[in-house]
């Protein structure tokens, strides 16, 4: 299927070097955020530095042992994003504490979540030798997804700001939908890689469009139902868009059929129309996007445009080079440390800084896509591509919403926003992409495949010098 040339070198040392660079950026940002507002080198500084440092080196070591050919760029990028996010959350904590001494700081909890998320990613790397094992859990994943998505609707669920997407767990709240993103991706990758040929060959051809059979539309319909269900019952437009985008891209990659995309877009169109007609909160979002600067829209509560307009003011205040960490007023924007963290970063780091952050996402997504291209199994391709594309889509929805390119929806910025479930889910995604990239980059055995890969690599476990391979 592919003609990508892979040089079989492990590149773990490059990863270590990049990792140190990423840690320097993360810890440096955290130090700058506190300057003039707190004692330098306080408790939080060390907890952030030590957590990030130990956990990322831990993952690095696991990769050296378990997946030495994994992509070397992904881990440093994610550590940098997570660390800069922690610094900004801490910086906003300091502003909030100045106004209200009783304010409960968010950053220490986020550091804890970072440790949990990175630890979970490490465990996943250790436990899951090969991502293909997950294919066995295709239908179990569907059931798990359904349970996760329904959990907030049970008595365990909590409604916050009108959206019912949280459940309360002993020490706090959790968004099961974030994990459902992964399990749904596994289900779709498994289902589509198995039934791909069937879906492709059947169906009528009308002009250039090959229309699918009605029964093959079932997964598509399921995706649509999940998205609309999330929108209706949980009132969460952002997640709904995300789920649907995930299914769309996976179906397209599985079938290479534009007709499927067109059908999907038509269904989205119907969904959006229905949502606009039925749900006032969606219509209000739309209105406060189009007429953000109208006074009656600005002051409207709920559903006013004050948040997005204040975010724009923040970005404008940052301008090209930014005010510098700690020198702007990102605290004037509501939800500056979660939904609007890009506005806060844009204000204090400027266009240059926020473009650098976006470029990190571009690299991350591209490396994920690269893993999808490189791996040989259809399941891995679908999974890596779907998960990577989800990160891109999430960035687009969040930053597009903040810059008023599209209506603002409540979504987290991957790895940066305050919020444990999102961080955990995204780190698990990173672990999966790392595993897939390992199979993509590992030198293929020249002899017919034996029981396990290490034997194929030769007695020493190192790749043979001549093993330049064209992978498919």
């Amino acid at each position: 299927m592919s003609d990508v040339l892979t040089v079989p070198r492990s590149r773990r040392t490059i990863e270590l070097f990049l990792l140190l660079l990423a840690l320097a950026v993360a810890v440096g940002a955290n130090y700058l955020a506190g300057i003039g507002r707190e004692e330098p080198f306080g408790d939080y500084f060390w907890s952030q530095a030590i957590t990030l440092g130990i956990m990322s080196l831990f993952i690095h070591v696991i990769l050296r042992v378990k997946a030495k050919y994994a992509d070397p760029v992904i881990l440093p990028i994610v550590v940098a994003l997570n660390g800069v996010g922690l610094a900004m959350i801490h910086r906003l904590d300091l502003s909030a504490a100045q106004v209200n001494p009783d304010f409960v700081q968010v950053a220490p909890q986020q550091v804890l979540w970072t440790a949990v998320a990175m630890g979970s990613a490490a465990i996943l790397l250790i436990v899951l030798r090969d991502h293909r094992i997950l294919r066995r859990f295709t239908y179990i994943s569907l059931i798990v997804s359904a349970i996760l998505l329904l959990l907030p609707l049970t008595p365990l669920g909590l409604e916050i700001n009108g959206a019912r997407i949280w459940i309360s767990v002993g020490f706090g709240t959790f968004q099961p939908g974030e994990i459902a993103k992964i399990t749904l991706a596994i289900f779709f990758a498994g289902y589509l890689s198995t039934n791909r040929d069937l879906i492709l060959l059947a169906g009528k051809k009308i002009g250039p469009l090959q229309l699918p059979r009605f029964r093959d539309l079932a997964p598509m319909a399921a995706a649509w139902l999940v998205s609309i269900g999330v929108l209706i019952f949980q009132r969460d437009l952002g997640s709904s868009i995300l789920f649907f985008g995930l299914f769309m891209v996976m179906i397209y990659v599985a079938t290479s059929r534009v007709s499927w995309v067109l059908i999907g877009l038509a269904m989205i169109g119907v969904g959006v129309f229905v949502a606009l007609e039925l749900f006032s909160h969606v219509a209000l979002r739309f209105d406060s996007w189009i007429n953000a600067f109208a006074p009656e829209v600005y002051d409207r509560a709920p559903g006013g445009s004050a948040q997005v307009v204040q975010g724009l003011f923040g970005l404008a205040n940052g301008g090209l080079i930014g005010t510098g960490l700690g020198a702007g007023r990102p605290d004037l924007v509501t939800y500056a440390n979660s939904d609007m963290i890009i506005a806060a970063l844009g204000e204090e780091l400027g266009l240059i800084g926020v473009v650098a952050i976006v470029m990190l996402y571009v690299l991350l997504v591209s490396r994920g896509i690269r893993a999808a291209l490189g791996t040989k199994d259809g399941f891995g391709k679908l999974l890596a591509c779907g998960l990577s594309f989800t990160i891109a889509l999430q960035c687009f929805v969040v930053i597009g919403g903040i810059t008023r390119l599209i209506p603002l929806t409540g979504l987290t910025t991957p790895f940066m926003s305050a919020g444990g479930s999102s961080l955990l889910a995204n780190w698990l995604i990173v672990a999966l992409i790392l595993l897939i990239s390992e199979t993509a980059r590992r030198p293929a055995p020249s002899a017919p495949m034996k029981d396990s890969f290490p034997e194929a690599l030769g007695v020493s476990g190192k790749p043979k010098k001549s093993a330049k391979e064209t992978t498919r």
Partner: protein
Amino acid sequence: MNQAIRSAWVVAIGMFALVLGSLTFVQFFQAEELTGNPWNSRQLYQEFGRQRGALLVDGRAIAESVPSSDQFNYRRVYNEPELYAHLTGYYSLSLGSSQLELAETEILSGTDSSLFYDRVVRLFSGVDAQGANVELTIDPEIQRLAFDLIPEGQRGSIVVLEPSTGNILAMVSKPTYDPNLLAGHDTGVIAENAAALSEQPGLSFYTNPATESLVSPGSVFKLIDAAAALESGRYDAESQIPNPPALEFPGIEYALPNFVAGGCASRPTADLEFALEQSCNTAFAQIALDLGEEAIQEQAARFGFGETFTIPTDVVASSFPSDLSEPELAQSSVGQFDTRVTPLQMAMVAAAIANDGQLMKPQLVKSIRAADLELIESPQPELMQQSVSQETADQLTDWMVNVVDNGTATGAQVPGVAVAGKTGTAEFSDVGDNAWFTGFAPADDPQVAISIVMENVDIPTGQQLTSPSAKRLIEAVLNR
């Protein structure tokens, strides 16, 4: 499958390109417009987040920024707020600023060019930017006395100047207000307080009545007539002016009378000394008719009429009307009709006569001091213009001393000190009269020039609140 994955990547890159484009649009191309948006409070926060300099009177802060624990780092606090309200003005989040807070804002906020060196030093020493302090010429004891001399509920102003420098020693007006009501950080409360203050009769909190309210001067304006008469060369101490009980005009009903109960009636003709002593309307009206509108106007201008200037707060122009008919000129020349003055303007007239005819520019600022109180700048006394010749000034001084010794202002007499003065009453049929005193002391070596106006009072109350108050103020200044 890989072709489709590449297409997905292209779509992802396309989405990233879109957000990079829209970030650039917002942060670069739209930034200026967004920064200027009236809903954008960031500039305000930046300005209000800085430690603003203090306004000092005799080393004590009457307006200062103290650390606050809210979203702004500092809070503006006014000490003895009602005593100094009209001088400090207010520095408000939603109402802007006024008076010294407005006029000296660049110094107070530290953005003035004279503070450039200070800023550079702070940049390298890492100390937070801080505004400079403004020290006033006000004497706190004189200010307090003047304030107490205006009864609560009485509308009036008192200005005390140092004639040789133009330094303002006291400047008070009532009714007054508490600028702290407008200086909080809750815009809702500010709006409420501002609305309540607007309801208060006689108060417009954004102006300083001593420099910005125009009132009829009445007979104190006769000093300007007398000055014009002497400066014209057509009158001297010997000149006799007809002094009828009322001045009639051919063809109309109106007649300008002398004050019925006054001493003018005792003489059918008067010299200037007597006319001033008893404040005879008809005598001065005839001088004005003789000299003409332009001559009076020109003399008034040489005392500062018709000119707006800053001390450094704004002073509105006092005015003598033009294009007058004879009856109108007659009325205007005795400080009625459309003649309008600020209380400060009449203090300037007295100060110019006191200072050998030299009018010094009134000044409210003694010095600019850096945050560490190091002297940055100290305004020097500035000659505004020569209002009258020294001879005219001497002559007017003698006559004004006579007014206090024998005439309408005997209440201002201070034992052992020659006090020069002139009273006035501007009459209104409907709301009561304006009672005036303007003068200076000691006559031979003037230390203090005073202007007092009490608005909307009956004549006995007005007399009680002017000349005797002048006496108290003169004593206070001479005994400091």
